[in-house]
């Protein structure tokens, strides 16, 4: 085991032990719940990272995939009393379908125009769902109130969710890791760095982007489903609101977009900060959340667009080179 393996292994161990470590503390349930929320944010931001980070196609409409993943499991319960878990694959399928349908026209746009188009489509979806009685309109829909069995994934404590989320996060990160090293991953980064040059080297730009969006949508839908399992209900604002999309972007960008653990790092910083400000100032505090996000965007844009990972690398490089400078002097 070389030295570069130490930080990731330490991080993995900390995440594994966290619920147990805080179980003795005052407000353990709250802390465990924050932990689960953190992991969920890390999953959805990691999912976003595939298309938004690696491929550089900054979607600000991922809420629609999240919403598909959240609504479908609760819908199948609402209609036919199926366990929400059964609805998850359907939710994923719906998200992939949406991705393929909206990706084809929106990928004709580039840069900010693409981002704006994704916002528009996601808002459209939210407004339609808010007025669609089958989906509970603006009230939303509810999952099973009490568990009929483990398969309903309805637990009172946050700890089972925490470990489910941790398992899913591990899967997402492993998939991303494999992708990073594959031809597909190389093609995504080439597209991000320059589409024209990428195409000249034989990268099928449109198809690759579409595949990235579909993959990303599938993982985002999983995050949505997990959200629905844990909360037991979903409404248009929580499942499809623009804040859901923005949170994915900010979380990934804060840690480092296009980096494997960037979204996780971002979530580790952002979610506790958000929970703390919300509990200090009371309420769910979306207004405050906006201010927090705005501040983060400002800081990132001004000081380190590469996010915390790049900042860390830069600091380490600065400190590492210091002793040599002394030597030379």
């Amino acid at each position: 085991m070389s030295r570069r393996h130490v930080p990731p292994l330490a991080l993995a161990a900390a995440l594994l032990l966290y619920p147990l470590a805080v179980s003795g503390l005052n407000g353990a349930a709250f802390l465990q719940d924050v932990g689960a929320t953190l992991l969920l944010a890390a999953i959805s931001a990691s999912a976003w990272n595939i298309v938004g980070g690696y491929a550089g196609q900054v979607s600000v409409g991922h809420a629609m995939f999240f919403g598909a993943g959240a609504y479908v499991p609760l819908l199948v319960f609402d209609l036919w009393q199926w366990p929400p878990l059964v609805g998850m694959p359907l939710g994923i399928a719906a998200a992939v379908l949406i991705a393929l349908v909206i990706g084809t026209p929106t990928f004709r746009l580039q840069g900010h125009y693409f981002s704006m188009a994704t916002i528009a489509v996601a808002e459209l979806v939210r407004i339609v769902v808010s007025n669609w009685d089958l989906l509970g309109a603006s009230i939303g829909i509810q999952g099973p109130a009490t568990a009929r069995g483990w398969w309903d994934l309805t637990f009172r404590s946050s700890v089972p969710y925490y470990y489910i989320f941790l398992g899913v996060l591990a899967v997402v990160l492993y998939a991303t890791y494999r992708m990073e090293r594959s031809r597909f991953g190389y093609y995504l980064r080439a597209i991000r760095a320059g589409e024209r040059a990428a195409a000249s080297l034989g990268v099928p730009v449109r198809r690759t982007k579409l595949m990235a969006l579909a993959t990303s949508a599938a993982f985002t839908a999983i995050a949505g489903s997990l959200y629905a399992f844990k909360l037991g209900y979903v409404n248009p604002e929580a499942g499809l609101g623009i804040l859901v999309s923005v949170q994915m972007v900010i979380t990934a960008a804060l840690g480092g977009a296009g980096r494997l653990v960037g979204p996780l790092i971002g979530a580790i910083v952002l979610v506790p900060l958000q929970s703390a400000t919300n509990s200090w100032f009371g309420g769910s505090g979306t207004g405050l959340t906006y201010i927090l996000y705005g501040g983060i965007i400002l800081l990132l844009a001004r000081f380190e667009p590469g996010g915390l990972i790049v900042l860390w690398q830069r600091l380490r490089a600065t400190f590492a080179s210091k002793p040599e400078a002394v030597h030379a002097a």
Partner: protein
Amino acid sequence: MLLEAERVSRSFGGFLALSDATLTVEAGEIVGLIGPNGAGKSTFFNCVAGDLAPSGGRIRFNGIDVTYAPAERHAELGIGRTFQVPATFEELSILDNAMVGAFLRHHRRADAEAKAMEMLRLTGLDQIARQRAGILGTPGRKRLGIARVLATEPRLMLLDEALAGLTPSEIQQAIELVRRIHATGITIVIVEHIMEVILAGRARPGLQPGPHYRAGNTAGRRERPKGDRGLSRPPSEAPAPTSLGMTATPALEVANLQVRYGDLVGVADVSLRVAEGTVVALLGSNGAGKTTTLNAIAGLVRVSAGSIAWRGMEIAGLPAHAIVPRGLALSPEGWRLFVQQTVEQNLLLGATVLTDRAQLAPLLERAYQLFPRLAERRRQRAGTLSGGERQMLALGRALMSDPKLLMLDEPSLGLAPAVVEQLYDTLDRLHQHGLTILLAEQSVPLALEIADYAYVLQTGRTVLEGPAEQLERDEQVQRIYLGIAETAGEHRA
């Protein structure tokens, strides 16, 4: 026949960039595309590479019709291309850059890496393969661009100005590299402005696309004596050529100008003088630094070193909006019109630096007198104008700030010969009225016809200067430095 391009045309809006270009390349050849700027080399190149769809004509590669195939299909079939500006994936490592290319034929990571390393060794980049590509300077980026394409295992390589921006010794190495690549059996089509390269490389000059500046057009004009252009210049007013820009106190004096774009050197060392009331031409091939020089004088790019003095006052480093009021105006390459605005609004936007509103009406009047076509179209959106009208508008807009020095960047680019003729007549008239003109132009005969004095730029340096008549007579100068149409015409395919 490996590549057959038949009567390929491409227009952008009303602007015909390429008409009826025909080129055939046999397997194993090296073919050079030469010709002045505006001849359509880049457009032709991009059509063959699949970056642009032609408006007309046929392109076949190895018998397969690729006229409308996308760029990635071209790569798949074995057509590789480099870019004039290398388009490096800066955030990726040098190895990863090459691996993107290698993945085309090797889907396994290990195979792609082996192929990429092989090509990095060939191009001499293997020692720094793990470094970020962003650290590379221009020569390194060009090498990497070549390595990346080689990794796709092309049968035909299209090299777009692989040598522009390199120093002479780097150029020698690059030529060596091109020869090595050719020796491996790859067919090469190269667009290169540095004429020695193609002439010395025993390459076959391939085509002279576009009808714009064929020898016939320009030769006729050149035989006409200077000043015999309808509005003849009074002999007494014509200053003696020898004194121009040399002894007279210059209105504009640029000394050892240097402009860098990051690692890329746009202008390495340019010095020039423009005397009051003269026309000075800035000649040289594409990438020689003409545009950058003009942009630096106009304050549009940051000057890295050197000085620019206007009527004795240092203006280097001043922002563009502070330079225009001092009497310098630029009519930029590609016109840069406000296409959503009307013709008149465009003209008025050229006059924003005027402090006295009373000047506005006479200036507008003058612009419409110079270009009656603009008066006809004053309410029309600039985006609907033809290429010639756009050039008139760009020129008219520059004149609206009532400049003392008018700078023009490639005014003839992409215009029909008749329109060019008209435009140059107008410039001549402006000159008669005492306007000082600094003109960057790739169409050498045209520029020398109107200019009193000329500077030749090559790879960002002034390499030659002299009175226009003298340069006009110097065959060697024309052939080597300016690559005029005659050279290519003799070898037309």
